Structures are given as C-alpha cells and as structure tokens.
C-alpha cells in the first residue's frame, strides 16, 4: 500500500475579476472567493468541507485539484504544488464532481474504464484487480456493458466513483458525491468511502450539503463561509457545540397560541397553522420540550429534526462575523 499524501494549505487567497453587465463595456470588479484560508488534512483522514453556496468551497477544491491558480498562498498535496506540477499532481488524485459526468455518454461503463486505464497508464494487471474490486464494492457488475447515457443517476454516480478511483489515487476529492441520490444509493456511497479509507488509507476531502454524509464519514469538519474558515474541529466537537441544535415543528388545528418556552428553546418561525422552535437538547432535552408543548390546545402534530446545514452555517457565520 502506498502512503497517502497529506494536504497542506497556507493562507490561500483567490480573487476573481468580474465584469458588471456581462459585456466588455461593464466595469470590472474584484470578488474575493477565498480570503486567506489555512488548513491541513493529515494522510488517511476524511475531512468534511462544508459551507453555504458561494462560500468558496468550489474555488478551494479547484485549486487543490490543480485546475485553478490561486492569487496567493501555498498549497502542497504530498510534495507537489498542484498548479505548478499539474500533470504529476492530477495523476495521483481522483476527483468526483457530483454535478458533472466524467464518463463518456456514448461508451459503456467498461469501455470508459478501459479508456481511463490508458489515460492514467494503469498496468493491465493492476487495472483488472482495481476494476473487479470497484465493480464488487460499488455493485457495478450488472451495468458494466450499458452505455452511460442509459444509467440512472444512482448507477451513474457509482460508476463515476469507480472512474475516479481506477488509478489508485492517494488523495480523493469528492464534491457533493451524494447529490440527488436516493437513500440506498447514499448509503452505498458512504459505506464505500469508509471502506476506502480503512483499507487503503486514502486521504479524502469531501464537500456536501447533506449533514448525514458528514456524520457518517468525516473525522474532521472544516466550515467555510465568505472565503474564510469559521471552524476547523473534530466532528464530535463541532456537533457538541454548533451542530447539536434541533428543530421542532408543531402543527396546530387552528392559529397557534402564544408560547412561553423554557430556557434553551426559541421560537424561530410562525406560520398560520404552525410554529418552528429551535432548541439545544443539552440544555433542554427533547422529551421535556415535548411534554411542555403537549398541554397546548389545538396541537395536531410534532416533528423533531435537524436544521438544514445552510441554516446552521448562516447562523454560525452571523455569530462569527465580528
């Protein structure tokens, strides 16, 4: 087994020039996508990279993949600077962009993998071993001879992941690998990534909007917002603080009454027939809150869930803005 490479990012900045109005006559303006971020992912770790749209995740991922040049700052993946040694660098990383396809529409999955074998110069013996292992782990045997255009989204995503791993990359970057997938496909992808790290010690950088992906996979969570790193801590630590919040939605048969909530809970939204309450289960356990609410008149239904990740991050950002 090869030793996996670590990712090291120091004071990374990226500004874009954009033209207002989209024509050559518009005034140019500078947009800061990354405003000096630093982090390290040790070899063999799975790091979750989360943040709202436009936070700078994609920019960071493109720089790490070697397809974008930063304005300033340093990046090392293993011993290489991605944008300076593009060809050597991309030969040992694997990337999945959940919203794009890297397989060829006109070819079957097997043909596509064979093409990648030639592109990455994978020796025949190693290729056969990897293909069989990936086909087994990602359940591809039934669809190997189907052309990519005929695959369902879940099947295609599994094939995409196989395509990104056929050359034994030391570092894998997964950009929203579970987007649009149904529950069984999501579970299959997560299980696969977990095994990948355990069996091959691959370093994984994962972006997602699905909190369950982070919970199932990430050792570390890096929260990014407005181009800066807002938090960088082990998943448990982040969960204990920010991510521990729960929301409770209460439906009423009539207009909801005025609520007097105990400490640790706040009303965050009020509709014509419903109220949303955000609470911290460590200060106010869910059963206590439910008991408190169940005495209310006209109460129809209660649902407890997690806030959407964007909401947490948005609030997180507001808290850290200063």
């Amino acid at each position, binding site marked *: 087994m090869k030793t996996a490479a670590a990712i090291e990012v120091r004071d990374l900045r990226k500004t*874009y020039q954009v033209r207002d109005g989209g024509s050559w006559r518009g005034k140019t303006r500078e947009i800061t996508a990354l405003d000096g971020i630093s982090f390290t992912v040790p070899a063999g770790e799975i790091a979750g990279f989360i943040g709202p*749209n436009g936070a700078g*995740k*994609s920019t960071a991922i*493109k720089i790490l*993949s*070697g*397809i*974008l*040049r930063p304005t300033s700052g340093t990046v090392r993946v293993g011993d290489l600077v991605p*944008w300076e040694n*593009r*060809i*050597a660098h*991309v*030969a040992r*990383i694997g*990337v999945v*962009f*959940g*919203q*794009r*396809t*890297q397989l*060829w529409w*006109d*070819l079957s999955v097997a043909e596509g993998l064979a*093409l990648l074998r*030639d*592109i*990455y*110069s994978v020796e025949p013996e190693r290729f056969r071993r990897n293909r069989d292992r990936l086909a087994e782990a990602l359940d591809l045997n039934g669809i190997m001879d189907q052309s990519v255009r005929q695959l369902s989204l879940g099947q295609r995503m599994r094939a995409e992941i196989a395509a990104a791993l056929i050359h034994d990359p030391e570092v894998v970057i997964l*950009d*929203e690998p579970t987007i649009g997938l149904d529950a069984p496909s999501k579970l299959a992808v997560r299980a696969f990534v977990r095994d990948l790290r355990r069996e091959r010690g691959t370093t994984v950088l994962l972006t997602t909007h699905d909190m369950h992906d982070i919970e199932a996979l990430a050792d570390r969570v890096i929260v990014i917002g407005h181009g800066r790193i807002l938090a960088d801590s082990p998943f448990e630590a982040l969960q204990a603080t920010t991510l521990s919040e729960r929301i409770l939605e209460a439906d009423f048969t009539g207009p909801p009454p005025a609520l007097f909530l105990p400490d640790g809970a706040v009303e965050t939204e009020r509709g014509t027939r419903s109220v949303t309450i955000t609470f911290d289960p460590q200060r106010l356990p869910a059963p206590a809150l439910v008991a408190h609410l169940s005495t209310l008149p006209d109460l129809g239904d209660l649902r407890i869930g997690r806030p959407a990740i964007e909401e947490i991050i948005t609030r997180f950002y507001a808290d850290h803005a200063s």
Partner: protein
Amino acid sequence: MTIRPYVTSFVLQWKIGLRYRLAVLAGLVAQMWFGAISLMAYAAVYHHAPDVNAPMTLRQAMTYTWIQQSFFTLLPLGCLPAIGEAAKSGAIVYDLLRPVDLWNWWLSASLARLLGNAVPRALLLALVAGPLAALVGLNGWSLAPPASFEAALLALVSFILGAFISASIVMWWNIVAARTLSPLGTYAVGTPLAVLLSGMLLPLPLYPDWARDLLLLQPFAGISDIPIRLYMGMPIPGGVVTALGIQCFWLLALTMIGRFWMNRTISRMELQGA
C-alpha cells in the same frame, strides 16, 4: 511520456464518428449535389468564354471541385463538438484533471474527428465520381486520376499535412470555445471562413491574379488547395518546395502560438460554479 493516451483519444473520436453511418450517407448525397451544380456552372462559364485564358482548364476545375467536395468535412468548421459541449456544461474540468498534455490530447481527438468524418466520405465519393462516373459514360465530368505516380505520392504527404493543419485550426476554435464557454461562436465564424479561404466555394487558382498568390499564403490553403494542386500537377510558384514549405510553416506556427495561447487560457480560466 507515453503516446498511449493520445492514441486512445484518437480511437475514441474515430469510433464515435463511425457510429453515425447515416450522416456519412446523407453528407455524401449533399456533396454530390453541390458538386454537380458547381460542375454545371463551370461548364456553362467555360463554354461561353472559350477564348479566355483561364488559370485552370475545365477538366481541372471539375477534378478540383470533386476533391474539395470529398474533403468538405476535413475543413475546420468550428470547435470539436465534444469540447464545445464540455465547455458549456462545465465538464471541461475533467479534461484538466487528466495527466496528459492537453494540446496533444485535444489535437488527437480533433484530428480523429476530422479524419473519421472525411475519409469514409472521400473514399465513397472518389469511387462514385471517379471510376463509376467514367463507366456510365460521364468521362468528361468525372474525377481525373492523379497527374503521375510522383504527383500522387506528393499529394498524399500534402494531404496528411493538410489534415494536421486543419486539426490545429480546430484547436484554436477549441480554445475559443473554452474561453467563451460556448461552441456556437466558433461555428458562426469558422464555417464561412473555412469554406471561403480553403477554396471550397471557388477554387483558389480561379481568383484574380493579385489575390491568387496571397491566398496561397494563408493557412486554409494548406488544408486542401495545395494538396489538390499537387495531385493534379498544377504549377505552383516556387514548386513543390514552396507548397510543402507553406504547409510546414503554418503547422508549426499554429501549433506554437496555439500552445502558448492555450497555456495562458488555462492559467487564467475561471471555471464557474460547483
């Protein structure tokens, strides 16, 4: 550095090209039609002005037209469709993620696409316009054989150089598509430019004296005009050396400037979205 990925890229586009057999047939019919109309126009012009000393004989104009028609799809009409689509959808990032020299990688795909389209058509058209036309008695309208064995060999070398020049121009269109995130502009500008300057619309030797030599010096002449002149044994100012020299010059210039431009484009490319 291994050559395998580039061969693979070539074979892939070649296969995709051959998958559309009906398009080959439809294209063949269209080219026969356009070819026949041009021939009739030339015949009319030449017969009504027998005393004008034209730079090409009617027979040469006909052969020139047939070969131009056969190689219509060898012209750089715009970017490689696959690259244009990838630029639009953003999947072009995957091209940058491959451990390959991007110029050679796209060039081999572009070349395969041009040849995959042009070669089957050219062979069919040569068969129909050459021996078959002669067999049914249309001798005066058919594609003439090469001027000599030597001419045939020279033309072959020249055609190969021409295919590479065309693929290099397609590469420039690929870069434009990558920059503008759309293939459409390249077709809008590329098609008329290629049709006019290659001699497809009107053979370059038939242009007025002052334009003729200038037209020979531009890159599009190297795609099919120069090879056809060599095939027919037509005199070229400066002879074979100039002919192949012009082709080599353009191939080198297009490649060197194109590579430089592409590297600049990549290092400044700001790919939008996730």
